Every structure is written in C-alpha cells, then in structure tokens.
C-alpha cells in the first residue's frame, strides 16, 4: 500500500508539473510581443486576418485556448507552421518527424560515448586516488569541462574539418543513406557535446567510488583474496553509480539545450534548431508544442531515474516499501 500510494503521489505531482509547464509555455507564447496575425500575414486582407486569428485560437481567452491546444497535443496533433508565402504551412508533426531522429541519435551517442569513457576513467581515478595520475587527469578534465561546447565544436571543426581535412564539418547524413558516413557526420557534434559530460561523470563517479572503497564490505572482499579488478567491477561500481545515473538522466534534458548550439555550429537541422527557428520566426503553435514536448521528455526521464534508483540500489527500494 505504502509503495503504491507513494507512486500515485509522485505520478500526481508529475502530472501537475506537466500541466503547469505547458500552461506556462502558453503564457510565454501569448506574451510574445507583436500581433501574430499581422506578423504572419503582413499584407493580408481583414478577412484573412480574421480567419488566421480563428485558426491560431487567438479569438478565445487563454484558458479556452490552452485546453483546445492540450486536447490536440495529447492526440498527437501539434499544429502547423504559418508562413507568409501562401503554401499553407507545414505540419509541426512532420517537422518533428524529420528533426527528432537526428537529435535523438546525437543525444543517444553522446550519452553512450560519455558513459563508456567516464566509467573506466572514474574507477581508475578512484583506485589511484591522490596519486600523480589522478591529479594530472583530474586537472585536465577540469580544464576541459570549462570549455563551452560550441568552443570545442568550433575548435574541432577547424582542426579535423579544415586543417587535417578528415571530416566534413557541416551537415548530417541519415543512417539509411550511408552507415559509415552517418557515423562520420556524428563524430564532431558528439565529441563537442561529450567532453563536458565526460568530465562531470568522471568526477562524480570518482568521488562516489572513493567513498565506497572505504566501506567494510570492500575490506572484507579484499581480505577474502578477490582480485582488485573483480572487486572494482563487481562490488564497487554498482553502489557507486547512483549519482552518475541521476546526473546522466538530468543531463538528457540539458543536452537538448546544448544540442541547439552544437547543431547550429555544424549546420545540423535537429530539434534544437527547429525550436530556435520557431521562436525567432514566431511560429506560435510550433513553439508551444515543441517546448511542451521537450519538457514532457525531461520530466519523464526524471521519473524513470527515480524508478531505476530502486533497481540499482536495494536500500532505496526497501525505504520506499516501508
């Protein structure tokens, strides 16, 4: 009962946050300066203006507008963009279908690559804590974590793209087109986004592993004569990876923000670019649906982490249960 009740309460809170976020975005969109109708159709007749106003839902008050938007959003109708040329606009859903996979690939590769590098590195640094290896590598990581991702991106674009002419610095190649080129087009954006994350992840894992290494069960294991490697990977990694997991999930949300800039640096039309474009060009329905989508994804990630917590650390599970 206690467990179920706790979960229901958490779910209720998540739903409340979701409603508030989407409503908040509605308010922001309504606050955008200028009359959307004259911005989108500067040379339209009054009849066309009235029609567009009705289409955008601007003839009703904000609550009515919000609920009709929410009804469409839940059903997967994200609205359409409006252009000044008379092509009728594009469905936001189609734009998402085009850009979302790219951003998801980018984020997925980034998280996987960062974890692959930082898990062995974090364990190594903890094992060698306070030796020269640890100090040097820790300082290098600290330095790297301070370089903004667009700085790393531009540096890489110059080094690998121009100076050594190894990679094409712009554009995205879909996997269906050419698998090898797809991965090649991903190398620089993924590196630009990963380097900061690797540094964060490694530092977190190092701190937690050092704490775990002081626990009695580690002394016990090594007095049983188990090899250091076995102890580190089988006994120490799991209890030390909680903070790392949380950070990885929280960073998924932040990555979308980071991706906006990196996508722009590498002329890589992803979801982030689409959001920035929509805001700059006042695509009201698109802004609202896209930001809501990102927020929903972010909140769900957090929920998943909470659930994963219990799986990784049995202590949390028993607390929740009791």
């Amino acid at each position, binding site marked *: 009962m206690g467990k179920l009740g706790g979960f229901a309460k958490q779910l209720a809170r998540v739903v409340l946050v979701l409603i508030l976020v989407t409503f908040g975005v509605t308010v922001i969109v309504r606050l955008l300066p200028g009359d959307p109708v004259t911005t989108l159709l500067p040379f339209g007749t009054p009849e066309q203006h009235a029609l567009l106003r009705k289409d955008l839902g601007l003839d009703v008050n904000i609550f009515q507008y919000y609920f009709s938007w929410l009804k469409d959003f839940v059903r997967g109708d994200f609205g359409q963009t409006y252009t000044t040329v008379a092509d009728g606009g594009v469905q936001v859903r189609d734009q998402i279908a085009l850009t979302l996979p790219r951003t998801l690939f980018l984020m997925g590769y980034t998280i996987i690559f960062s974890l692959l590098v930082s898990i062995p590195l974090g364990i190594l640094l903890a094992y060698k804590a306070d030796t020269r290896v640890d100090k040097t590598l820790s300082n290098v990581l600290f330095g790297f974590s301070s370089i903004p991702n667009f700085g790393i991106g531009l540096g890489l674009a110059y080094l690998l793209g*121009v100076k050594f002419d190894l990679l094409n610095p712009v554009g995205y190649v879909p996997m269906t087109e050419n698998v090898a080129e797809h991965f090649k087009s991903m190398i620089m954006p993924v590196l630009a986004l990963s380097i900061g994350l690797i540094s964060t992840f490694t530092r977190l894992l190092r701190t937690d592993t050092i704490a775990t290494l002081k626990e009695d069960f580690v002394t016990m294991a090594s007095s049983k004569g188990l090899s250091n490697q076995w102890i580190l990977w089988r006994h120490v990694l799991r209890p030390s990876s909680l903070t790392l997991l949380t950070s990885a999930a929280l960073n998924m949300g932040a990555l979308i923000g980071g991706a906006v800039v990196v996508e722009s640096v590498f002329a890589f039309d992803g979801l982030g670019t689409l959001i920035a474009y929509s805001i700059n060009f006042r695509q009201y329905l698109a802004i609202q649906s896209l930001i809501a989508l990102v927020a929903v994804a972010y909140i769900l990630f957090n929920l998943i982490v909470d659930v994963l917590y219990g799986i990784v650390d049995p202590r949390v599970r028993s607390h929740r249960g009791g």
Partner: protein
Amino acid sequence: MGADRKPIGFYISSAWIGLCVFLTAFGDSLPITDYRANDFDAMGVGPFSPNHILGTDFDGVDLLAAIAHGARWSILISFISVFVASVIGGALGIVAAYWRGWVDAVITMYFNVTLSIPTLILTVAMVAVFASPDMSNPEAGMPRILVLIISLTFVIIPVLGRIARSSALSWTGREFVMVAESIGMKRRQIIWSHIVPNVVPSMMSVAFLAAGVVIVVEGGLAILGVGTDPGQSWGSMLAKNRGDISIAPHTTLIPAVAIALTVMALNYYGDYFRNRIDSRESRI
C-alpha cells in the same frame, strides 16, 4: 588550518577574474587601440603581427581591443544577472524552507516547472518575449543588454533558489535555531541572524558556477543570432567571425579561449568555496 596556504590555481583564477573585472570597470579609458577602429592595412592578420599582438579580424578590428571591450559585456551580463538572481532566488528558497507548508509547495513547484525547460531554450524564449515587438526594427524598445540580463536572471533564479532552499532546510533543524525559537525570537530575526549567514556561503559556490553558465549561455545565444549586437560580447565576437574559421581561425578561437578561461576561473572559485565550506562543516 588549510585556509592560509592557497593552491596556485586560486591565484591564477583570481588574476584572470581580477583582470576581467578591471577591464569591465576601466576598459574604455585604457591606452589601447579603439575596438571600433578598422585597420585597413592589416585585415585578418594573425597573432603577433606588428601593432596587433592578437591579430585582427576581417574588418581590421584589433582583437586585443575587442577582447578587452568584450569582457565588459560578458562580465557585466553574467555578474549582474547572477547577483540579482541570487538575491531573488535566495529569498524565495529561504522563505520556502522556513515557512514550509503551501508556501514551500508553491515555490518548489515554480522551481521545478522552470527547471524542466532546458536553460538555453527558455532563455531564447524569454529574450523573444522581452525583445522589441517589431522584428524589422530591433533598436526600438528595451536596450539589448537589459533584455539579456532580465531573461538570464529569470532563468537562473530557480537554480540558485533550489540550493538556497536545501541549504536553509538543513540549517532550520539545527539546535541553535530551535533554541532561538524557544526563547521567542521573531522569525524575521532568526532568518537574518541565523539562516542567512549560513546559507550565503553555500550559495556563493553555486553562484560562481552559475556565472560561468551564464557566460556560456550568452555565447550560445549569440551563435543563434539573438545575443548582443555583433562584436560586442565575446560570444557575439565569436559568432561574427565564425564564417572565417577556415581562413583565419584565430578570429574565432581567441574569443572562445577568453570564454573558456573565464569559465574555468569561475568554476575553480566555485569548487574552492565548496571545499572550504565542506571542511568547515566537518569541523563543526
């Protein structure tokens, strides 16, 4: 104890931050080249050229002068927005932690809602809200720098507020606060004399990190074309010269290095203060 001998990184960071603050305050009255002057005999020359130690960009603008001038914008925007956000976020966090109940619920909900939209995207949206209503005439309305400061402040408030709340929560349960309550001290007095002095140090370390984040976000805004005017802040210098990276990489990399050094120094400060607080805590 360890407070007497500071590590070398502390001095390097202090020197760089000190230089940036100095440039922010007195940058315009220094005897260096005017950052608006175009040297048409030396356009796009590399570092260590005669008259231009860091070289020039393709408008013939001296990069040293531009970096010195850019420090003003980057540092001003970052420090002001973090300071204002610390005051507002700190007040909200402490009030939430001390009053608990529905006040806490409302404030925490506000933090959570704001934090569930990625920083950069929320900032772009806020800039769009506060910017000039007429897209063809960006000069009208609020000055750009004010738009950026307000937007960044709004975005950074929940980050600092959440730290203030959790820090204040850990202090409100301490014995000396209970004693103060039991002898009938007023809430306002307890907050000012017991909670605030203890919350401020832990906020300081996060504020330094946040100042670094703001500088980076401002650079990101510039790359997306919604930052300061071209060539003003470091970020917009970088954005302006980005197209020349293949022929004159120094024009882009120099502002990037300036941003990286500043963020590094601010992160170092943040870490340094956190370690000091941790060791103080463990001694108590």
